């Protein structure tokens, strides 16, 4: 990593590439650090993160129950599959112009798009997770007289939880893509995407664009690391079981 950093630094300093095109890495990092103290910029980041968190939370609230329903009732599953297969491949960014006309701009438009895009991985992972449930455990509880819903909540949900967590992790990065992406396209308002988009319109704004990108990458990295850690911590029993079985 350090070598690459130095290489780009040398390239930028030696004026081989135009300075305004690719500024040296150190100035970008310096600018990124400087932005950390800039309240305006922090406000932008907070706006983006709010949209991200809200969208992700709603997506979880919608997709997990739906996934449980699809995964546990075969008739609903086959019925819904054609609809799902038709809706899923629609790229979420293609909905941005539509949402722009329907919902205007800002949070009201960002959040529904994030929910749409982030729901799919959670939904599918929940369904896969239910597929993986130990049938003996289910039958055991059934014989003890637990109702279907109770079995679903006590055994199936618990054993599908690691899969759902993986889905949430995938959804989290998709939600971030959508949050920043809609902001870049909508062109006005506030948010990290707006910061990057408006910097790219200013001559000599590459430094800010790159600094903003570094920030976006850091956000992604932090989110990913936190979720992976949480997964490892919460589902240690799951991984232990896995490695014990294989």
């Amino acid at each position, binding site marked *: 990593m350090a070598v690459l950093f130095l290489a780009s630094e040398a390239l930028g300093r030696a004026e081989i590439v135009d300075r305004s095109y690719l500024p040296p890495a150190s100035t970008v990092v310096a600018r990124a650090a400087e932005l950390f103290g800039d309240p305006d910029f922090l406000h932008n980041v907070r706006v983006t993160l709010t949209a991200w968190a809200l969208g992700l939370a709603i997506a979880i609230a919608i997709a997990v129950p739906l996934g449980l329903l699809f995964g546990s009732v075969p008739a609903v599953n086959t019925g819904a599959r054609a609809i799902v*297969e*038709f809706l899923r491949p629609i790229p*979420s960014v293609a909905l941005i*112009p539509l949402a722009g006309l329907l919902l205007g701009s800002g949070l009201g438009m960002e959040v529904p798009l994030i929910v749409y895009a982030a729901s799919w991985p959670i939904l599918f992972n929940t369904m896969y997770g239910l597929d993986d449930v130990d049938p003996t455990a289910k039958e055991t509880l059934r014989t003890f007289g637990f109702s279907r819903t109770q079995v679903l909540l006590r055994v199936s949900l618990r054993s599908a939880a690691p899969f759902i967590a993986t889905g949430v992790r995938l959804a989290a990065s998709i939600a971030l893509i959508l949050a920043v992406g809609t902001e870049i396209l909508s062109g006005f308002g506030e948010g990290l995407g707006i910061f990057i*988009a408006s910097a790219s319109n200013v001559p000599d704004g*590459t430094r800010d664009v790159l600094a903003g990108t570094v920030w976006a*990458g850091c956000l*992604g990295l932090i989110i990913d690391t936190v979720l992976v850690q949480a997964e490892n911590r919460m589902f240690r029993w799951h991984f232990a079981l896995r490695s014990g079985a294989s």
Partner: protein
Amino acid sequence: MTTATAAVSLPRPRGGLAGALVRGVLHRWLPLAILVAGWEVATRISGSPFFPPPWEIVRRMKELWFTGPADHLFLNGEATGNILPSLGRMALGLLLSAIAGIVLGIALGRSEQVLAYLNPIMQFARVIPPPTLVPVFIVLFDLGTQMQVASIIFSAIWPILLNTADGARSVDQVQMATAETFRLSGADRIRFIIVPSALPKIFAGLRLALSLSLILMVFSELLPGTTDGLGFELTNAQSQSDMPTIWCVIVLLGVLGYLFNTILLAVERRVLTWHRAARKAAS
């Protein structure tokens, strides 16, 4: 793969093959048909200009793209001018990222040290939301196809690269030792052992890359300054508040995404038949 096993384990309905087929079609497509019909009725009743009825969308799609001569597959100038450039960019971007991703992935997967060195950079590059890089690419490559292909590659390469590296790293040690004893050359080792055992992972990466490249294709065309492509058609329609065209493009993109995914799954099934058979034999 889980869905495939689930489909196999479903109980066979009684009443012969034809009956099963009819029932299957009914079960699968009836809900969709009902939904579309309901949508049609609802949109006709409400008459909202934002939600044109499905029939209207289909008609508009036909007059928008499919009024050309039969020897051009009925495609007209509008279609060849906007759909083909989009598909070309996506294909080029995906192809280049697949080649680069698989080659680099195998190289990295086979050398622990380099992988350890490069891992932090790759992880960082992977988590940057791809849209944020599009402005960067605009500055570097100017507007146009170059920039669009570059942004597709940059987002589609990571799942392929990381998956391939992961697959190449987890090659069976016994097999590698056997290759050693038989003095297989490096190229043969890659061809007969490493690539086959990494293939399932590679396909998983390709599937992720496919949907990412579709997203980035549209996104990079949505930006101001593009002159053709489906994304351009979207922004153009948006600026004129032409709702039916927006819906047409969305539906077309959905159909294309579905087609691409189906094709990739079919290829995967063919290529990986031996893999499944081997797994079944082992278990």
